[in-house]
């Protein structure tokens, strides 16, 4: 078992390593212009410079840990993460009760669904002009756009989750004496969680896409802002370093969410632990 895991990791590393080698060879041989595609080594060096604290350590400016995390990359990643979390929370907190209502009540569904169906296909990016008009620059328009991106996946999955609850559980609960409120809270809600959580996962993914775009238009820090700024200076090594950071951060968020989901759904059939 353990041997297989190592083997799989080794196998997964082969293709990236080969690509890196080809990339390095192409750069070293002068086959491609370093301004267009810098070498992997140049990217790694730039990445380190981006990550490392800008100022030398000075106890007068606060503790060692604060200094350690004072690098530009860390600040950018924190800025992006903050917007993702805030935007996602706003979107999900609005979508969850609305989805529960629309899933549980036919009347609520009839009232709200036509509006949802019209607004849902509009990509959050299309709201950029309006968001600047409404919220100006800075975090508010970014958080607005991100919350839009998170809202619809959570909403749609919550509706589907409540609607697919197996009637046998409702019958059993009624037979055991449960009233409508208890049934909603203790039967429909938990029975819908697998769907809701997959909506949450998609919502966070969308929020992460939208944060990068929103930082390119409205704010002065964050990973999205940084790679656009690097383009203006023609720092292609920094662009790639920023992109890889975005990829790693996205991976970290997604695996974190997956772990939480696995814990919450430990009762669910067909889940690997």
């Amino acid at each position, binding site marked *: 078992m353990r041997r297989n895991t190592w083997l799989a990791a080794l196998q997964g590393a082969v293709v990236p390593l080969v690509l890196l080698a080809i990339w390095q060879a192409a750069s070293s041989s002068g086959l491609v212009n370093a301004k267009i595609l810098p070498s992997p080594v140049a990217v790694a060096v730039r990445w380190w410079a981006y990550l490392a604290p800008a100022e030398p350590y000075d106890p007068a400016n606060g503790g060692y840990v604060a200094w350690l995390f004072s690098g530009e990359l860390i600040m950018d990643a924190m800025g992006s993460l903050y917007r993702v979390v805030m935007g996602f929370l706003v979107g999900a907190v609005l979508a969850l009760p609305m989805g529960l209502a629309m899933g549980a009540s036919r009347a609520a569904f009839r009232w709200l669904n036509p509006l949802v169906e019209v607004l849902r296909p509009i990509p959050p990016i299309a709201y950029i002009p309006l968001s600047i008009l409404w919220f100006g620059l800075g975090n508010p328009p970014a958080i607005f756009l991100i919350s839009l991106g998170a809202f619809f996946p959570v909403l749609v999955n919550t509706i589907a989750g409540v609607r697919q609850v197996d009637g046998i559980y409702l019958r*059993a609960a*009624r037979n*055991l004496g449960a009233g409508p409120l208890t049934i909603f809270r203790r039967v429909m809600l938990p029975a819908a969680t697998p769907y809701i959580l997959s909506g949450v996962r998609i919502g966070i993914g969308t929020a992460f896409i939208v944060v990068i775009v929103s930082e390119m238009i409205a704010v002065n820090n964050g990973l999205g802002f940084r790679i656009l700024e690097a383009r203006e200076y023609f720092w292609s090594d920094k662009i790639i370093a920023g992109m890889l950071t975005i990829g790693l951060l996205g991976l970290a968020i997604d695996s974190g969410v997956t772990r939480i989901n696995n814990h919450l759904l430990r009762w669910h059939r067909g889940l690997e632990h």
Partner: protein
Amino acid sequence: MSDILINHVYKRFAVPGNEVVALKDINLDIASGEFICLLGPSGCGKSTLLNAIAGFSHPTEGSITVGGRPVVDPGPDRGMVFQEYALFPWMTVFKNVRFGLEVKGVANDVADARVRELLDMLGLSEFGERFPKDLSGGMRQRVAIARVLALDSPVLLMDEPFGALDALTRRSLQDELLKIWARLGKTIVFVTHSIEEAIYLADRIVVLTYRPGTLKRDIRVEMPRPRDAASPEFNTLKRELSRLVSEEQQRHEAAERAGLTTD
């Protein structure tokens, strides 16, 4: 005093372009503490009748009273055990059994003690913290039985509860059920299509006809328990019931061939 009184009950379903009479003029008095089996092929309305007693569906005509009160809604005075177990998969075994007590508002420590007692009675003490997905079918049905016993309802309704189990597990749960019934004195209405199961368990076997569902025969089983499936009495009764049920099964198949039904 009769515990369950079924009075001129009709149940009609509208199907596209037609009407199905699932139950027709059913009259049945079930005595308190009686173990009764409803027997018949699929489509004879035995589950429909059980659901009407449970309060999940209302008769088109007629009335049902349980313990002197007319049935209007499902309720914990008529605990139901389903063939599909219907355990809440997100709750542990312990919490499943506790659910009915919580709904009732029983104090925490009293509820905990009661759940432990029931788990013990059904041989589930070791499984309290498991989730249903980690249990076998037989174990799950034990949990479902513990869950309705927690309600302490005078009436138990069982809808082919052992239909999905293998023969050995089935027999051991049948024995368990008879023990519980002897000990707690519940009225049990048990739906099955297994003739042998009906004879093994019941005080009284009611055979229903295929559409419309009417009472075909009401037979009292006088054999002492535990009943021996190899005994001559058992087999005489089995032969008679087989004849009655297969007549209805043939009507069912004829209806299928005529394209009147797909169930």
